[in-house]
Each structure stands twice: as structure tokens, then as C-alpha cells.
């Protein structure tokens, strides 16, 4: 070919021909998986409740992370992330769907969060936690989280897309204001969602670091998903001369930073509980550090921290998209294991007991979100075309 502009692949809108029949395949798989999950919900309600919460939490953290990084972009007026921002917005926009996917949990709430059961109503520890642990307040909070997540993510994305046609800097400024208003609400929502749905699995237990522990996994896992999405799109021929190795370098650095952050928070939480040795607190780790759960907890320490930490330390790996994708997949697997070890020991107290419903729920929610993400991908340009900082972002050097 001659010295013309790169021909069709340089396009900035996603062409569905790259997906083809796979889109329908995803939809079909989601439908089949949901049907299987529905059968499981009636035959084995207890297992369904926990498996579904596990899968739900895994994907919720990824979507919340997309919103978090969008906020970070606007709050610090970042330059490098302009070119990847649309994909973060796309991930975050799935939070609205997460609100709908939350509905099945409403029906199994007392199974999951056993403080709701009438026989516990007179437990002094529950009475002490009045009015936080009351059903009314619990559902109001859940509604608030999803309303906030949905409004914030869709509003930011809408302004960003409007800027693609108008090019007006006022949308950048407006999004910055939205972000400043949203950041405290985001911190509150993420923290209390983690407390309500995960710490609430055992209302006797508490950890003051719980919210930030879940947040660490949130920011890390969504950065990994971003790396995978960007690489997939690059391999399909998009982002030519837009996203360079320099952008990968930054994403790799953030992956390393949050790997360390996760370990720092996870260890701090563990050490404080281990050292104080108060039965009310140690129950959480006692369960996860005995029987076969011990193997998974140890695997987390090695796989979620030491392996990615050592492998991401060097400059070379962070500048190599293929290597970084491998690391992203590895860390996502570890994040999945992390959430598994958070949720499932509450059900299988005697030891690890995998169930087909774990996988069915993951497939059901995962395929639904993947299909909707592909739909999102074609809705708008792949990167903010007329962001005032786009040129600087493309020319990034670090």
C-alpha cells in the first residue's frame, strides 16, 4: 500500500464485523447460563445465593473500578488517560446493569445476610447495631448505591460523548465538577456496599479496613480489564497511532502500584486482627486459615502479591502488551479467587467445596456484561475524539 493514511482500520468507531456471530453466541450463552442458574436457585437455594453473590461481587468490583478511574482522570485533570477514557466510561456504564442483576439477591437476602432472620432479632450484638442493620435502611442504602453509580457513570459518559461532536471544553469542566461532587459519595458507596453485602455475611464480625480492602481489588482488577480491552481493540486494528507503548507502561505501573496497595491493605487488616487476637475479629481469618481454605488463602498471598509484584517490577514487562495481558489475566484470576475466599467460606464452613453454580453464575453475569459491553463499544467513538487534551495524550512520553 502507498503512503496514504492507514485505510479502514484507523477508524474510530467500532465495527461489529470483528465480533460477528460471537455476539449472538454470548447472548445465547448468557440465556442458557441464566436458565441453569434459575434451576439451581430452586433446587439448591442456599448454594445459589452464595454463588450468585460471589459472581456478582467479582463483576461489580470491575465496573466500580471503571468508574473510579474515570473519576481519577477528571479529578486530577490527567493527560495520559484521555485516550483510554472512553473504555473506562464503557466499563463504568455497566453499573446500571449491575443494579438490575442485583435483583435476584433481594429474594435470597435472609439466606445470605442471616441477621435478617427473625430468630436473630433478639441477639444483643444485632440490637447494638440498630438502626444500621435494619431491613429498611439496608434496602434504602442498596438503592442509593445503584442510583448514584448509575447517574454518575452515565452522566459523565454522556457529557464525554457530547464533546465528541461539539468539541467544547465546557464538558471537560462540567465533568470535573461532577467528579468532585461524586468522589466522596463514591468512597461512601463502595465502602458501605462492601460492608453491607460482604462483611454483612457475618454480622458478628467487623474490620475497619474492609472498605479499602475491597477498593484495592476494585482499582486493580479494572485496570487489568482495561489492559485486556485496549489490547483486543488494538489487535483488531484500532487505536493505531493513538495508544502507544507509553500508555501500556503507565497502565503497567498502575497495575504494579495497586498490586502493592492490595497487599499492603490485606496484610494490615490481617496483622491488626492477628495481633489483637479478639475472638470476635479472628473468626474471619480462623475460618479462612483452617481446613482447605488455608490452601486458597496462602495461594492468594503468593499469587495475588509476590508473583505479580516480582514480574511487574521490571521495566521490560510493562512495555510489552502481550506480557502485560498475561499479567492482567493472572491478576484477574487472583481477584476472582480473592472474592471467592471472601464469600464462600461463609457457606462452606468445613472447607472448600466448589459447586457448578459458582461457574454458572459467573458465566451468566459475565456473558451478559460482555454482550452489553460489545453493544456499548459501537455506540460511541472508541476514544474522546475532541477532548482538548487528546493531542498531548497521544504524544505521551514517560
Amino acid at each position, binding site marked *: 500500500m502507498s503512503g496514504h493514511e492507514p485505510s479502514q482500520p484507523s477508524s474510530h468507531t467500532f465495527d461489529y464485523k470483528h465480533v460477528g456471530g460471537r455476539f449472538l453466541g454470548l447472548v445465547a450463552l448468557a440465556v442458557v447460563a441464566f436458565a441453569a442458574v434459575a434451576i439451581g436457585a430452586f433446587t439448591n437455594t442456599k448454594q445459589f445465593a452464595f454463588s450468585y453473590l460471589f459472581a456478582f461481587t467479582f463483576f461489580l468490583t470491575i465496573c466500580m473500578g471503571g468508574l473510579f478511574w474515570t473519576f481519577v482522570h477528571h479529578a486530577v485533570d490527567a493527560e495520559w488517560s484521555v485516550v483510554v477514557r472512553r473504555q473506562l466510561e464503557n466499563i463504568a456504564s455497566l453499573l446500571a446493569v449491575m443494579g438490575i442483576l442485583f435483583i435476584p439477591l433481594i429474594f435470597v437476602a435472609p439466606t445470605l445476610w442471616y441477621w435478617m432472620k427473625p430468630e436473630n432479632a433478639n441477639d444483643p450484638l444485632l440490637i447494638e447495631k440498630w438502626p444500621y442493620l435494619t431491613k429498611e435502611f439496608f434496602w434504602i442504602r442498596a438503592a442509593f448505591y445503584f442510583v448514584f453509580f448509575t447517574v454518575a457513570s452515565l452522566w459523565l459518559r454522556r457529557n464525554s460523548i457530547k464533546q465528541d461532536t461539539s468539541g467544547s471544553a465546557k464538558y471537560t469542566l462540567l465533568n470535573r465538577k461532577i467528579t468532585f461532587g461524586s468522589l466522596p459519595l463514591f468512597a461512601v458507596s463502595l465502602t458501605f456496599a462492601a460492608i453491607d453485602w460482604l462483611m454483612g455475611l457475618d454480622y458478628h464480625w467487623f474490620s475497619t479496613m474492609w472498605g479499602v480492602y475491597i477498593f484495592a481489588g476494585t482499582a486493580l482488577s479494572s485496570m487489568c480489564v482495561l489492559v485486556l480491552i485496549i489490547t483486543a481493540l488494538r489487535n483488531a486494528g484500532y487505536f493505531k497511532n493513538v495508544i502507544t507503548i507509553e500508555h501500556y507502561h503507565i497502565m503497567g505501573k498502575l497495575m504494579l502500584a495497586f498490586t502493592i496497595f492490595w497487599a499492603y491493605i490485606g*496484610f494490615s487488616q*490481617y*496483622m491488626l486482627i*492477628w*495481633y489483637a487476637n479478639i475472638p470476635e475479629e479472628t473468626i474471619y481469618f480462623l475460618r479462612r486459615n483452617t481446613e482447605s481454605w488455608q490452601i486458597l488463602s496462602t495461594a492468594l498471598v503468593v499469587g495475588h502479591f509476590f508473583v505479580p509484584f516480582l514480574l511487574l*517490577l521490571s*521495566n521490560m514487562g510493562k512495555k510489552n502488551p502481550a506480557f502485560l495481558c498475561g499479567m492482567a489475566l493472572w491478576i484477574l484470576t487472583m481477584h476472582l479467587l480473592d472474592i471467592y475466599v471472601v464469600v464462600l467460606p461463609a457457606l462452606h464452613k468445613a472447607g472448600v467445596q466448589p459447586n457448578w453454580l459458582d461457574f454458572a453464575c459467573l458465566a451468566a453475569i459475565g456473558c451478559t456484561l460482555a454482550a452489553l459491553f460489545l453493544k456499548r463499544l459501537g455506540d460511541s467513538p472508541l476514544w474522546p475524539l475532541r477532548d482538548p487534551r487528546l493531542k498531548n495524550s497521544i504524544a505521551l*512520553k514517560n
Partner: protein
Amino acid sequence: MNAVGNTSAPVYGIAAEFQCARDLYHAAQKIRDAGFQKWDVFSPFPIHGMDEAMGMKRSILGKVVFLGGLTGFLTAVTLEFGTSSFLYPLIVAGKPTNLFTVPAFFPIMFELTILLSAFTAVFGMLLMNGLPRLNHQLFNWDRFKLVTEDKFFVAIEAKDPQFSSRSVSDFLESLGGTHITTIHGD
């Protein structure tokens, strides 16, 4: 060509003045391509991409810092396990110190790793830059004071294997440098 400093002292190098960052950047590229080794540029503010224009290699500081951090980590491990597990085994609350007491030891391992990494980074950086130093031959040149205002400078040192006063001053002139001056030591 002007000369400053003590003219009987050895020559430090030849310096030239440039009027803007762009000129300095292009001059740096040409000096790099001419194969000079011992030279430097000076500007009132950092110039993006200058390290590349000068052909500077990646600093080895990162690797040195890694070794510093490793030293800190191993120091902590030795101090903690060596003393409490081997030399004078501690038994607290019926629990002997062994591999399973690692949560209590971990903060110290972490802190010492960070401490020695930070020390190595700061002091290694100073050392590699030849800092701290009290004076520099370039300060003998009055015009060089403008480097903290609005002027840009290049200096090619006499230590450079390609250095010869005539060719270097001609070369700097051809790059658009002005006020080309030979800098002597004190």
C-alpha cells in the same frame, strides 16, 4: 574567542549560549550525532525529551535501588529471625517464634526495605551526579548566571576524547551558539 577563569589553569571546556529551548534541543541532537561523550546542557527549566536528544542512556539507579531494598529486606530477616528464633529463642504466650510469627516481623521487613531503598535512591542519585559540590568551573563565566533566567547553554568538556579547542568552538558556532567562551578552572 573569550576565555574566563584563571587562564593559566587547565581548560574545563568550551561553552556556548543559545536563545531558546528549541535551539538548545536541536544543538543537543547534533552534538550527540557528532559523537561527543563529555558534555552537558543547561536551562532554566526541564526540557521534555532532552535526555533522548542528548542520547542519554537509562540510569542504572533503579537497579542500584533494588539492591538497596534487598539489603534492607535481608537485614530485617536476619535481625528478626536470627535473634528471636536462633540466638535467643523467644517464647511468648506459649508460642515459639518461627516461620508462623512472620506477621509480627513483616512490618519491620517492609519498613527496612523501604528505608534502604529510599536512602539508596536519594544518596545514589547525589553520588552519581557528583553532588554535593561547592563550586563549578562554569561559575567563572558571568554570562552563565543567566541560566537561571532566560538563557540556554551547552558546555563540551576538555575531557572529551574528541575535544580540540578550535574544532569545538567552530562546531558550536555552526550550531548557532553565541558568546562562545573557553572556561578555565580556578
